């Protein structure tokens, strides 16, 4: 079996089952079907190009997934941004029984000093057994700002892979907002090469696991340039029999003088049978750095619940409020209000569906 998907940058004990995903991309050779894939209107300053961005690293999901997407891509959107583009570019994929597979290769090249927001949304028909695989390659040239928002809202019979690879040059900033609310098996992984001085990578991520959903993540911030910054923050809820594995790595390479990396995760456990795994790595080959990681895993804070209920909220409303508060940093970065609303409604519905596990 090929085991190169979502590989932990440095291996540890095999019995923990965190070194990689035990699946083989080669088993998912897609049918030759037309995808439903819609690229929204191009904002001023953004144009489609023929060639994807060059000089980006392997994605966080690894070579196997990258090669899979490059070989079988049935949809693509390559763009280049110039200047300050105000409106976001929306790219939507949809899986249904007639279009069960979408393999999308997207690319964003942000010219010097430009800014662009790229929103990828994937949905599916409720019963469709579909496969979504995407590789998004990002090159942020000097001083550019790129915000990539990925919303995985596919149904419970789908499998999804969201691979991201980015290079961030001097003074550039790459923001990744990842919302993992769909798919029975949702895997994602970003590798960000902070190549230039003062380059920044911001990750705000949320997930909601319930039923038998399986979520598997592998994010890597590679600090190569001086004074680079990574801020990787994740909030999640696990209910039902769901499982989640978050690998998050801050890799300070030699020469990344004065680099700073922060990583955090807050996990709310709402079920006795959910399983949470977290593997937060800090790799360090440079002395003058500051790296920090913190994880908090447990139930809702009972004191806060008590306080909110004493102010007249029902337990369900109090729970919703607290979960929304944890999800807010990511949700607030979705540029379209209707998408924000869709995400919050989906979260509320999931909480309602899992009401019995709170009792």
């Amino acid at each position, binding site marked *: 079996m090929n085991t190169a998907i979502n590989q932990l940058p*440095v291996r540890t004990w095999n019995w*923990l089952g965190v070194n990689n995903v035990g699946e083989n991309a080669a088993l998912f050779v897609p049918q030759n079907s037309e995808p439903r894939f819609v690229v929204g209107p191009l904002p001023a300053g953004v144009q489609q190009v023929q060639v994807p961005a060059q000089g980006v690293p392997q994605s966080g999901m690894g070579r196997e997934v990258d090669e899979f997407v490059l070989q079988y891509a049935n949809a693509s959107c390559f763009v280049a941004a110039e200047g300050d583009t105000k409106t976001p570019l929306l790219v939507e994929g949809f899986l249904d029984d007639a279009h069960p597979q979408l393999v999308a290769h997207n690319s964003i090249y942000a010219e010097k000093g430009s800014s662009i927001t790229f929103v990828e949304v994937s949905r599916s028909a409720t019963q469709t057994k579909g496969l979504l695989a995407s590789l998004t390659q990002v090159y942020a040239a000097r001083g550019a700002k790129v915000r990539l928002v990925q919303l995985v809202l596919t149904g419970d019979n789908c499998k999804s892979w969201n691979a991201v690879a980015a290079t961030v040059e001097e003074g550039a900033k790459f923001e990744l907002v990842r919302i993992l609310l769909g798919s029975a098996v949702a895997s994602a992984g970003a590798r960000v090469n902070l190549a230039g001085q003062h380059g920044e990578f911001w990750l705000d991520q949320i997930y909601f696991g319930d039923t038998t959903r399986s979520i598997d993540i592998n994010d890597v911030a590679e600090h190569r340039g001086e004074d680079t910054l990574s801020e990787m923050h994740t909030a999640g809820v696990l209910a039902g029999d769901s499982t989640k594995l978050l690998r998050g790595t801050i890799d300070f390479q030699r020469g990344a003088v004065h680099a700073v990396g922060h990583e955090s995760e807050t996990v709310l*456990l709402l079920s006795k049978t959910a399983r949470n*795994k977290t593997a937060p*790595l800090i790799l360090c080959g440079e002395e003058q750095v500051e790296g*920090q990681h913190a994880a908090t*895993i447990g139930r809702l804070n009972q004191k806060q619940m008590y306080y909110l209920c004493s102010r007249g909220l029902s337990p369900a409303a109090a729970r919703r409020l607290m979960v929304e508060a944890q999800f807010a940093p990511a949700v607030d970065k979705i540029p379209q209000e209707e998408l924000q609303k869709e995400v919050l409604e989906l979260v509320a519905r999931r909480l309602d569906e899992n009401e019995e596990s709170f009792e």
Partner: protein
Amino acid sequence: MRSFETEKTQVEEFDRSIYDIKDAANASFEVNSGLTPAIVQKISEEKHDPEWMRLFRLKSLQTYNEMPLPSWGPPLDGLDIEDIVTYVRPNTAMRAKWSEVPDDIKNTFERLGIPKAERLSLAGVGAQYDSEVVYHNVRAEVAAKGVVYTDIESALTGPYAEMVRKHFMKLVPPTDHKFAALHGAVWSGGSFVYVPPGVSVEIPLQSYFRLNAPGAGQFEHTLIIVDKGAYLHFIEGCSAPKYNVANLHAGCVELFVGEGARLRYSTIENWSKNMYNLNTKRARVEKDGIMEWVSGSFGSHTSCLYPMTILKGENSRMEFTGITFAGNGQNLDTGAKVVHAAPHTTSHISTKSISRDGGISTFRSAVVVAPEAVGSKSAVACESLMIDDRSRSDTIPVMDIRCDDVDVGHEAKIGRISEQAIFYLMSRGLSEDDARALIVGGFAEPIAKELPLEYAVEMNNLIHLEMKGSIG
């Protein structure tokens, strides 16, 4: 107060001269290097093993041959088991008086301060030289309480034979990993301790392991059973002179902490820098029991050391306090593992690591909370300090939580001295260098205070330093 002016501006290499004095190889018997069924049979014969142990060794050898090397961790390329002599019997039988131990061996332990420590501050001492225990003694008043402290070979055939058989390699089965299997096949020496119910051993017991023979392996087995409501502090020390060939230490420590009992296990590992230290330590803690680990890793070429605690009984708890100091040519992969397998269990892991002069230190941990461990709490904190950019410091923690009613926290930190802290101290009259030295001195303090005094002094020698641009 220390005078900062006289201190140097770099981290000094630890003075190892005491440890590096070699005795002439003067074994009364040793097996050929390498590992074959014939060698394992020979070791078993020489040690007059009971039949079950002979079979156990041969089965372990088979397991060893079938298992692959670990696919993670530091490289083990420099270690070839074909070059390792697995059994070296020193030229003496075990003694209960230092005066009866041959001079060369006795002098080695004198230099290491073991007999003196025994006189001053220990309830009993076991001293192993190469593959066999050469000295074992326990104070009469401690023995009178029913405390058993003996070499494990004697225990294997004496009145506690059944107890040893019941526990031997049950916590760490030979199938655990390749070097546990190797240990099962060629183990030799080590200590057996039994503390009866309700007995509190007020002063510590200590076993010291010295490997003198070049190209040899040391595979001692330590088995400690602390019965209901009892208390014991056990200290383990290890060292070896430096040779140009690889030496191997693949010991095994199995600790059974009974209901309401408490065991404190302190280790200062100071092997020479040609040593592959692939040691396995594990504890099982019953209801209301407490396991405390204090672990200092300073020596060896390569270390893989992750003491594991299984919190089996309700309300049991563990604390792990560790420091790792990796210098030139060293790759020290250390950490801890804990399994919460019962309700209301608590674990607290706190480590510090320092890498200097091209040394590599890796902190590796695993916290597993089983579904039945409701109301459990776990906190992990690790801090790393890099002295220069030729060194490496990696942190690889994993948490596997299968229970919703838990409180799990994890913190990892690597960084420089806070400029604010320096500014504050300077505003109180210290020079900048003094301020940095004070902060760095404080880095290791929480660990130093957990160590027995003589080891704390030893560690302070290591970390008596002043440096620039490091962590606070």
